[in-house]
């Protein structure tokens, strides 16, 4: 289930990122949630967005696929659209932007009235207009990979949270996006179910998928992420290699945040 994009980036492809974001701004009413965010993700990179709640990390994610419309800034995908939110953005531009990424939600957001298999083939068949037999075959392969092939005809409510989230991941993969977005994918799970989901995400990372992930799982971020970005108050406070940001942060705010997460009492 490696990404289909043939343009596997040469090492150090920062010049040619899959995604680049510049000066992203977003306010809700008078509350300025994102003050000017710059990001760039290279092919095969896993970017972990960490930070306290309200820091704007989820909003960054939601600005990348049009769930929120930024007030300003530029979002560009390699080989895809570059959108300048400083100007009027058409629906078509937004749709083109959205089609570059797949999203995994904190609360899974599976379609409760469709079976596992139907959830997965909905996008490929209804949106991408691919032949149903082909979509089903691919969906079954993916389900086998995440250990849920025997659940394909069940409804979401018959699955555990961890199983539902793995279906959510497969639903995003089935569209073969250039980028996978994860919004706190394990935050709603019972602790004993977190491992299964993280295991799947780690495998995806090893397969070379490019990902941006909002997470509170610092141990996971340290192991899987290629870069950690710490946000607070709508700005990027610190970014760098996971070992550096999580073990030896330069900034006091990062230090406090990491300390609090590792020592909650």
């Amino acid at each position: 289930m490696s990404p289909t994009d043939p343009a596997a980036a040469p090492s150090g492809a920062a010049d040619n990122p899959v995604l680049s974001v510049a000066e992203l701004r977003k306010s809700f009413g008078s509350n300025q949630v994102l003050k000017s965010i710059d990001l760039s993700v290279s092919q095969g990179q896993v970017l972990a967005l960490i930070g306290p709640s309200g820091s704007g990390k989820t909003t960054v994610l939601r600005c990348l696929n049009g769930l929120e419309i930024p007030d300003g800034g530029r979002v560009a995908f390699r080989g895809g659209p570059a959108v300048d939110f400083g100007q009027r953005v058409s629906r078509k531009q937004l749709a083109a932007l959205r089609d570059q990424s797949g999203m995994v939600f904190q609360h899974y957001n599976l379609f409760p009235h469709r079976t596992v298999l139907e959830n997965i083939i909905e996008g490929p068949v209804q949106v991408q207009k691919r032949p149903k037999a082909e979509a089903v075959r691919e969906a079954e392969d993916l389900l086998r990979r995440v250990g849920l092939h025997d659940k394909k005809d069940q409804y979401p409510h018959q699955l555990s949270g961890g199983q539902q989230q793995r279906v959510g991941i497969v639903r995003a993969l089935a569209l073969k996006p250039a980028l996978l977005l994860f919004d706190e994918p394990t935050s709603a799970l019972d602790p004993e179910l977190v491992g299964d989901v993280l295991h799947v995400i780690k495998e995806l990372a090893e397969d070379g998928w490019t990902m941006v992930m909002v997470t509170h799982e610092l141990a996971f971020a340290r192991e899987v992420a290629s870069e950690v970005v710490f946000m607070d108050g709508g700005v990027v406070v610190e970014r760098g290699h996971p070992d550096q940001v999580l073990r030896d942060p330069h900034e006091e705010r990062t230090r406090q945040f990491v300390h609090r997460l590792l020592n909650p009492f």
Partner: protein
Amino acid sequence: MNVDWELVRTSLWPIVQGGLTGTIPLSLASFALGLVLALVVALMRLSGSAILAGIARAYVSVIRGTPLLVQLFVIFFGLPSIGVVIDPWPSAIIAFSLNVAGYAAEIIRAAILSVPKGQWEAGHTIGMSPALTLRRVILPQAARVSVPPLSNSFISLVKDTSLASLILVTELFRQAQEIAAFSQEFMVLYLEAAAVYWVFCLVLSAGQTRLERRLDRYVAH
């Protein structure tokens, strides 16, 4: 009171026939049209456009704020005076479907709003347009929520179609009226009509239960 059982026996079939050829087709046609119109009105209210939402609100307000009988009479007896003459059957269908739409629009609107926002977002992130998300994701879930209240509307409508007898549509109640006028057995005939309506509604309630069970299969209990 002496019941003329022979009259009950001979009048039963004409009354049931009035139901089968009048009441039921009238109800089904009006409800189907009414639901389509209701969906349009509900979507206008949810559209975010102040003008469309205002029109929809005014429509619901007028329909709910005026008697069905008056609406029926305006269409059948009123419109001819401005040169619009409509036959009894189409008049009845127009009046009933406009009326049903006023009530069903609010039911459908509430049902759509009851579907969690995350479902719209999930549709969006897999590339669906809002229209496709509405059709494939939201409405199937809204349908489940709206079946009980819409069934109530439908059962009310079946009984309300008796008003069509006043504009000369030959349906269940008009059959009973005509036989009653002829035989002068008002009590017997009207109770008989009531019994037939009741049986129709029992069948509908059973259908509602089955439909609810079918739509509930994907919900945790």
